[in-house]
């Protein structure tokens, strides 16, 4: 009984030391695994879903997305200009076909969700967030179209028989003192998806 009490401190110290060593090794292994296998999470597929948020990191812009419908042939963004509208007749983010169409207001006096869209550039990242994850896109083109041109090219821009799941962002531009003469149309392709 006395022997046991004499031998205990060295044993406990050894056990603690071995546990500490194991934890250090495990931590190093996990860091190495993370470095060597960084894209492992992307292998998890994010299902298509209704968008909840649009993020334009290059423009420091984030906005809530709400569903909107067509009124005749008019796509009217949400009444709250800080929000973005997702046309429910367009593809859900993450879809393999069609294109996801979102639109938000430009407010002449400031405060519109897409006031900065005219500063976006080709190659910049645009993210759209659903309840299951984030779809990352890269801007392919930025076009400014008159109302007439937009109507003429409506099928190309909004049609759902093509697009391969690309993202279309649209707002107004060219303030003429009393209204807007043109639309700015941003087309972006999806390059990655991150589960939430």
């Amino acid at each position: 009984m006395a022997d046991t009490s004499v031998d205990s401190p060295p044993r406990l110290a050894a056990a603690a030391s071995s546990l500490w060593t194991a934890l250090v090794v495990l931590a190093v292994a996990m860091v190495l695994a993370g470095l060597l296998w960084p894209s492992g999470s992307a292998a998890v597929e994010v299902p298509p879903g209704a968008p909840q948020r649009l993020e334009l990191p290059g423009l420091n812009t984030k906005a809530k997305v709400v569903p909107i419908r067509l009124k005749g042939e008019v796509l009217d963004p949400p009444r709250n200009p800080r929000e973005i509208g997702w046309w429910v007749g367009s593809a859900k983010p993450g879809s393999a076909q069609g294109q996801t169409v979102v639109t938000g207001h430009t407010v002449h006096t400031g405060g519109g969700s897409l006031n900065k869209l005219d500063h976006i550039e080709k190659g910049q990242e645009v993210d759209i967030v659903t309840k299951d994850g984030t779809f990352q896109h890269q801007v392919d083109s930025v076009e400014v179209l008159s109302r007439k041109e937009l109507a003429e090219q409506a099928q190309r821009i909004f049609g759902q028989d093509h697009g391969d799941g690309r993202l279309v962002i649209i707002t107004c531009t060219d303030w003429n003192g009393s209204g807007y003469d043109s639309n700015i149309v941003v087309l972006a392709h999806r390059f990655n998806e991150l589960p939430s």
Partner: protein
Amino acid sequence: MRTTLIARGAAVAAAAAMVALSAAPASAATVSQASATALSLELAGTGATDSGTYAVTNDGTTESAEGTNEPLITALGGQDAIQVGTLAQDAVAKRNATSAACSGIAGDGATLVAAGSGDCLSGGDNISLDAASLDFSNLEVIRSDLFQGADSQLQELGKPVQDQITSALAQLLAPLVDGLDGAGIYVDLGAVQSSCTADDDTASGDSTIAESSAYVVMPGGDRVTLVDLPVEPAVNQKVVTDLSGVVDAIMAGLRTQLTQGLDGALADLTQVTDAIQKQVLATLLTSLEEQLAPLEDNVLDITLNAQDTSPGAITVTALDAKVLPAAEAFVGGSLAHLTIGTSSCGPNSPVTKTVVNNPPKADNPPASVPTVVTAGMESYDDGSAGRIALVTLLLLAAAGAGVATYVRMLRRG
């Protein structure tokens, strides 16, 4: 022979001309059409005026327009009912057999929006429309049958002083009745507008009425609300209103005047007993109520979101108001008929296309896609400025209170 040849030549030319003329409409067929009229006023006795109509048609290649889509309120001559405000009327007709129109009126400061975007106007102040003045000059306060209601015994007693009673009552009530002539019917309008769209098959439209009401302002400044108009009216929603509130106000005024002034007015007439007073006054008030009775019938007939449809076409009028004959005896120099925001769309039909060889196999028709994106606003007030001002005020108040407490403590110390 020569005459015959000339005659034959003329006949051939005439036939050719007929053929050409008959062919012309086919080549210039209307593929789409729409029109808009912001406002039309018909005034009692002085005729009608309107903002004109902006009408567009598309023959499949080009859009043609008639009239102006920038109407000015100042162009509405010959009337005093509306002096300020913003008129809007716009229409588009496309070669794909779709058309749209919108029209309406709002107060100064409203933003105009092009047709095809739904509403034509955004924001703006309210407009007070001077719809009618009320004329009570034909009201007979003291009628010859004033004493006929009293029983014979009282009539005999009062006979010697009938003229004096009549005169005293007329003098007492004259200021009140004369003062009624300043009363007027007003219609207070926010943005009132209609819009429509049509394609080659269907047409639809709607109206919005922002913060609008009809009311009477009495000479003393009292306001009697006749009716508040619904913001999103149902199709062909009828709103009728009477002036019973006005009649009540007038009768209440008369009763008060009689109650407060009658004893003084008849003080010298010792023969007038309470019984005579009571019966004469009952007759007087009954007579006035009978004369004002027409005002308790419907005087304003208002139809909101009036829609007239036919296959592929629609005409929407946001507000159609008429002053009904019941009020004619009391309404002078007024608006007889007012229409605001009349928008018409269709009927449209696609261009008949030439049959091509080996036509492509019919696919499903392309789904409807947007052709207009109305993603621009002039300004937006989310109330944050007010909140910031409130917080600033609270902070200032708190700082003030803190400084005051600090100073008080220093003085005590």
